[in-house]
């Protein structure tokens, strides 16, 4: 590994880039939600309030840390960085400039699936470690929800891989160049992926594990200061990560319909395509989450098991037959 790769992983288009993207996403989320609700959203922090998530983050890091007495202190204190690491590592498998990611292997998707599972597992561990009553209830819901959406999510991710005949994200992106976007090949898989991402992100209508009017702040109730800052940042980063994953798997990622072979500024065009697609998916998620109420956990489980799982299986079958 040479120095350039380290810079790529840590700065651009790796960690730092994605963290700032996460802040922008969070801001866009709040702004879009506010606009849809008839408000204007954050205004004071930075121009049009764009620095609001940054302010939240730095404020949290400067606060006092409180560790509950009966908590598992090791996990409680050291868990949040690991929780943060899951989507952070996942992002380096996603091509941002060019058709190849920083790190690419033939088995990318297996690792991505592991990251998604690990992130939920970590949330569960953090919740249990804090040993609060609300957290415990919340973790019950989290695990149940995870058990429901995991299968459809997995099948939805596998569909484009089957279509591309490749388990590498870079490979899948390359297979979609020349406007062969998989959203046209596996539309149901795309829809299932978006719905499952809402559940993975704990956004309405699946914000069941941190339903604030039922169980306070869910599994995050006991966290304060720096751990909370990490947890919040991880949530936004997961947001970006899942949007980027959806963009790469279904919308061709960095591969655009036109201007695919210019000599100058090729990287800039790749980046532009990538960002446009990520924000498009982000806006879709913002809109869905703002327009819906929270469902109950059993209703969510019903939806995933009786509707989305068969649908994604059907999609997978169609893709296999088409190939």
């Amino acid at each position: 590994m040479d120095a350039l790769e380290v810079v790529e992983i840590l700065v651009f288009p790796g960690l730092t880039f994605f963290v700032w993207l996460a802040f922008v996403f969070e801001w866009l989320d709040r702004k879009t939600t506010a606009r849809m609700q008839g408000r204007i959203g954050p205004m004071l922090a930075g121009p049009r309030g764009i620095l609001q998530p940054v302010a939240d983050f730095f404020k949290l890091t400067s606060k006092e840390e409180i560790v509950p007495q009966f908590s598992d202190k090791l996990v409680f204190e050291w868990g949040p960085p690991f929780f943060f690491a899951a989507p952070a590592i996942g992002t380096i498998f996603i091509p941002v400039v060019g058709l190849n990611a920083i790190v690419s292997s033939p088995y990318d998707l297996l690792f991505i699936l592991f990251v998604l599972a690990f992130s939920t597992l970590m949330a569960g561990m953090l919740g249990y470690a804090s040993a609060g009553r609300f957290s415990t209830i919340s973790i019950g819901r989290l695990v149940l929800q995870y058990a429901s959406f995991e299968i459809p999510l997995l099948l939805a991710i596998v569909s484009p891989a089957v279509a591309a005949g490749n388990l590498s994200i870079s490979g899948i992106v390359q297979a979609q160049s020349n406007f062969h976007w998989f959203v046209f090949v596996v539309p149901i898989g795309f829809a299932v992926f978006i719905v499952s991402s809402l559940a993975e992100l704990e956004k309405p209508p699946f914000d069941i594990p941190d339903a604030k009017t039922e169980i306070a702040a869910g599994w995050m109730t006991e966290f304060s200061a720096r751990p909370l800052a990490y947890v919040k940042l991880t949530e936004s980063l997961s947001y970006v990560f899942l949007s980027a994953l959806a963009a790469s798997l279904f919308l061709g990622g960095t591969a655009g319909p036109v201007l695919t072979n210019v000599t100058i500024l090729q990287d800039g065009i790749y980046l532009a395509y990538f960002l446009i697609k990520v924000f498009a998916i982000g806006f879709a998620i913002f809109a869905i989450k703002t327009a819906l109420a929270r469902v109950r956990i059993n209703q969510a489980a019903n939806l995933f098991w009786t509707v989305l799982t068969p649908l994604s299986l059907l999609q997978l079958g169609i893709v296999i037959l088409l190939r």
Partner: protein
Amino acid sequence: MSDKGNNSPISGEEGSAKREVSAGLMQYSPENLMPFGPVHPALHEPEYFKLILEGEVIVDAIPRIGFVHRGIERAAQDRTWIKNIYLFERICGICSFAHSLSYVQAIEGILQFEVPKRARYIRVIVAELERIHSHMLWLGLVGYWTGFDTLFMWIWKDREHVLDLIEAITGNRVHKSYNTISGVRKDLPENISEPIKREMAYIQDRIRYYRDLVSREETLVVRTRGIGKIDAETARKLCPVGPLLRSTGIARDVRTEDPYAAYDEIVPEVKTSSQGDVASLLTLRADEVLESCRLILLALEKMPSGPTKLTAPRSVPKGENAFHVEAPRGELFYYIRSPGGITPERVKIRTPTMANVLTATSMLKGYTLADVPVVLTGMDPCFGCMDRISVFEVDKEKQWSVRGEDLRQYGISHYKTKKL
């Protein structure tokens, strides 16, 4: 239900349609006790519900109410009749006009006053505006409680229009201080009818939209339909009041059965629904808002001219009177005894929430934790009202009578490590 459940005074009234829960093996261990309050994001008022859970299913709900107990009924005995108007308004920030309305009309009953007709019409207008604002507040909070923040924001945005009208008429947004013995303190402002008509048209338009929305929006419908079900027989037994009662199909409304103010001339149409669940309460309350809009426009049209108040004496002759009005949440009951003097001897207030809470507690059982906010919202709780004097705990079993210790431990058991 287990023996324990049957001992609870309200478990006998359980509806049969609910999911059966087995409480037999439950030891009510601390792990199964779920504190819901006293300070809980779903309740903007401190209330404490101990929920005995089996997984997510509620086996028993034990309310501990009285966190807002201030002792107003005792305080009223030391204050003059006029001062008490403003004291009673501050029992509740949502239905403050209804409180003062009931109180002054009870006094007017003893004084045998004939309140000027214009004042009675103005009272109807403000009371109906208050009903609109309260119902819209509730509709919005249902959105908030079911995680549908957009609905909350939209409805509260439109509610501001009603508050503007209330402010224009009475001078205040929340505690209106508008009623006085023998009438209202000031006349309607000039040229108010135009804004009222305009805003009523707007509100009617919006409420029709929301009524449509809440019955169509799928996620909201699945959260509210069949939740918090109560049948007419139970309702008759437990005597709830207001929309909660009317949602079971019993058309009981003080405004029509025992007209006060000008409701004998502006006759409301009592809306009912037969479902008895939270979904039907949503549409029922939207219907009531539309009806209120109609009443306001009608009152404005038929508004007579004349004085708005008489000169009222400072003291009230010896006597007693019971009076009730239809507050937004239901029948609001006042009973006053005058010893003949400038202070009352006894003022008894029974607020709608007090009448409804027994029903609501029995409604909770068998539903899941996720339903609690929705079910409790169903009765439109106003603990500020209820707690002026009451506390209760549906709990006789010593071994699990923990008395608010849960949340306290939750607070005590944490120590701090400074790491800055």
